[in-house]
C-alpha cells in the first residue's frame, strides 16, 4: 500500500492564511524564494505523523502572525480525513474521520520521513540529534517504539529528580529502575532491529548514494540488552549517578555511528556534501525497507535537498524516488532544480505577497 496525501488545506498556519492543494500521488516539487513558505507546507505534511513535526515546534508557534487566531490543517491522507488544529493558547487537537484521535493513530495511516537542512550537521553535533534521527527511523518500523521511549523517559526523569534531591530510598530507585529496564529493553531491541533492516536495505539497493555502515555505541561500556541486566546496571550505577546528579547508563546515552562503507571514513569526517549524501542514502534505505517489509511506501519530505546535489546525483535521486513510488515533497529555490523530474511530478510555486504565502500549482518546468 502506498500512502498518499491527496489534499492539504491550511488555515492560518504559519505564513499561510488559506492554502488548498490537491495531489495525485506523484512527487510534489515546491519552489519559491527564501521565506516564501515552502518549508511551512512541508512542516504541515510532517504534522500528519505523530510528534511535533519537522521543526519540533510547539502548537502555539504554528499560528499565523500577527492575527494569532489558532491554526488548522485539514488533509485527506490514505483516504481518511485528518484534521489537526490548535486554538489560540490551547494544545494541539486531532480528529480522524470526524472522531477525536490520538497522535499515535496517525502512524497507522501513513509513515512520514523527512530530511531538513537543520540535520546537515547531524554527524558532527551531539549524540542527541543522531539518537532522535535513529528513533524516528525506528518508529517508522515499530510504532510501539514511541510508547517505550516515553515510558523510559518518564521513569528516568523521576529517577534524575531523586538523584538531584539526593534521595536515598533504595526501594524507590529500584521501582523506577525496573520500569526503565523493561522500557529500555524494548528500546534497545527496536533500535537494533531497525538498524538491521536499514543495513539490509542498504546492502540490497541499486542506488547512487553511498552505503553507510551503521552501529550503535554507548559511552564507557557495552549496554546490557535485556530488562534484568539493564535494571541491574542502573542499580549498580547509583553511586556514580548520585555524584553526577543524572543517569549515566542506559539507552538514552546511545549514539548512532555511521561509516562511509566504501571509503572506511567515519561520517563525521566526511565532507559536508558527503554527509548529506549519507543522510539521503539512509532515508531512502528507510523507505525501501518499509516498502519491502511492511509493504508500505512512506511519504518523504526532502527540504532543500536538491540544491546540495549536482545535476547527475539529483537525477538519480528523482529516479530512485519514482522507482520507490513514494510521494515525496521536495523543496527548492527555483524550478530548474526539478527539471530532471519532468512529467513524473506535480509542481507548486510558493510566493509571498504582503506577508501571506500563495501556493499555486504549475505545469512541469
Amino acid at each position, binding site marked *: 500500500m502506498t500512502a498518499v496525501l491527496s489534499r492539504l488545506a491550511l488555515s492560518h498556519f504559519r505564513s499561510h492564511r488559506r492554502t488548498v492543494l490537491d495531489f495525485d500521488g506523484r512527487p510534489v516539487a515546491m519552489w519559491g524564494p527564501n521565506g516564501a513558505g515552502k518549508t511551512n507546507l512541508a512542516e504541515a505534511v510532517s504534522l500528519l505523523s505523530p510528534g511535533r513535526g519537522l521543526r519540533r515546534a510547539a502548537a502555539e508557534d504554528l499560528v499565523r502572525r500577527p492575527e494569532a487566531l489558532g491554526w488548522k490543517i485539514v488533509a485527506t491522507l490514505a483516504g481518511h480525513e485528518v484534521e489537526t488544529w490548535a486554538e489560540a493558547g490551547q494544545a494541539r487537537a486531532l480528529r480522524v474521520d470526524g472522531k477525536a484521535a490520538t497522535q499515535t493513530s496517525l502512524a497507522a495511516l501513513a509513515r512520514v520521513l523527512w530530511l531538513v537542512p537543520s540535520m546537515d550537521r547531524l554527524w558532527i553535533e551531539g549524540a542527541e540529534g543522531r539518537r532522535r534521527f535513529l528513533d524516528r527511523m525506528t518508529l517508522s518500523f515499530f510504532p*510501539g517504539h514511541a*510508547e517505550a521511549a516515553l515510558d523510559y523517559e518518564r521513569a528516568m526523569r523521576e*529517577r534524575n529528580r531523586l538523584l538531584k*534531591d539526593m534521595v536515598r530510598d533504595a*526501594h*524507590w530507585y*529500584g*521501582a523506577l529502575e525496573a*520500569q526503565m529496564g523493561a522500557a529500555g529493553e524494548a528500546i534497545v531491541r527496536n533500535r537494533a532491529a531497525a538498524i538491521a533492516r536499514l543495513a539490509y536495505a542498504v546492502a540490497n539497493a541499486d542506488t547512487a548514494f553511498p552505503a553507510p555502515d551503521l552501529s550503535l555505541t554507548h559511552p564507557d561500556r557495552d549496554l546490557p540488552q535485556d530488562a534484568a541486566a539493564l535494571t541491574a546496571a542502573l542499580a549498580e550505577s547509583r553511586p556514580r549517578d548520585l555524584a553526577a546528579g543524572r543517569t549515566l547508563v542506559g539507552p538514552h546515552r546511545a549514539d548512532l555511528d555511521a561509516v562511509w562503507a566504501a571509503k572506511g571514513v567515519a561520517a563525521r569526517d566526511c565532507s559536508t556534501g558527503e554527509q548529506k549524501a549519507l543522510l539521503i542514502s539512509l532515508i531512502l534505505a528507510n523507505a525501501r525497507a518499509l516498502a519491502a517489509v511492511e509493504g508500505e511506501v512512506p511519504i518523504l519530505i526532502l527540504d532543500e535537498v536538491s540544491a546540495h546535489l549536482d545535476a547527475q546525483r539529483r537525477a538519480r535521486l528523482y529516479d530512485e524516488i519514482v522507482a520507490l513510488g513514494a510521494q515525496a515533497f521536495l523543496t527548492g529555490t527555483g524550478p530548474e532544480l526539478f527539471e530532471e523530474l519532468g512529467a513524473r511530478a506535480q509542481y507548486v510555486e510558493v510566493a509571498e505577497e504582503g506577508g501571506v504565502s500563495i501556493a499555486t500549482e504549475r505545469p512541469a518546468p
Partner: protein
Amino acid sequence: MSAAPESLERLIELMARLPGLGPRSARRAVLHLLGKRGQLLLPLAEAMRDAGQNVRDCVICGNVGLADECAICADERRANGQICVVEEVSDLWAMERAGVFKGRYHVLGGTLSALDAIGPDELRIPRLVDRVASEGVTEVILALGATVDGQTTTHYIADRLPDVTVTSLAQGVPVGGELDYLDEGTISAALKARRGL
C-alpha cells in the same frame, strides 16, 4: 472589571477550581444555582457544610466516612486477610461497585512522583507496611493505574513487602472487548498475561 458582585466573584473563583470546570463553566454553574436558589443552591450549601463538618478520612485505610474508622474497616466480616491497595477513594468506590472484593482497602492518596515531590511518606505507604505487619494480612492486591507512576508505585510497594503475597490486577483485554479495537501495548500485555484453560 467583572460584572458580578464581589461575593459571587468569590464563589465563581472557587467553583472554577473544581476538576472539569473553568472560569466560563463556573460562571454558568453559579448562575444556574442562583436561578434555583431553593431547590439547588441552599440544599447544596447545606450538604457541603454537612460534608465539611462530618466526613473524615479513615485513620486506618484513608477511605472517607463519618467516623474515625470507615464502614469497611469497622466491618469485622471484611477482615479476610486481603488488602486491596488503590490510588484514590474513587478507585475504592469503583471496586465496591463491582461488589466482588470481600476484603479491606488501603487508599494511598496518589502515586509516587519524584517530579511532583510525592514520596512514600506523602502517600500512606508507611501505614500500609504497619498494617501488613499488625493485621494478619495474607495478601496485598495492588490495584493501581497502568501508568508509569502507577507501575513505579506497584514495584515500590511489592519491594517494601517481602514477607507477604503481593499480587496486582491483570492487564489486558477488557470484558466484552474486541481485539481489533485494542492498542499494541494492551495486546502485548494481554499476551504476556495469558493463562491456560
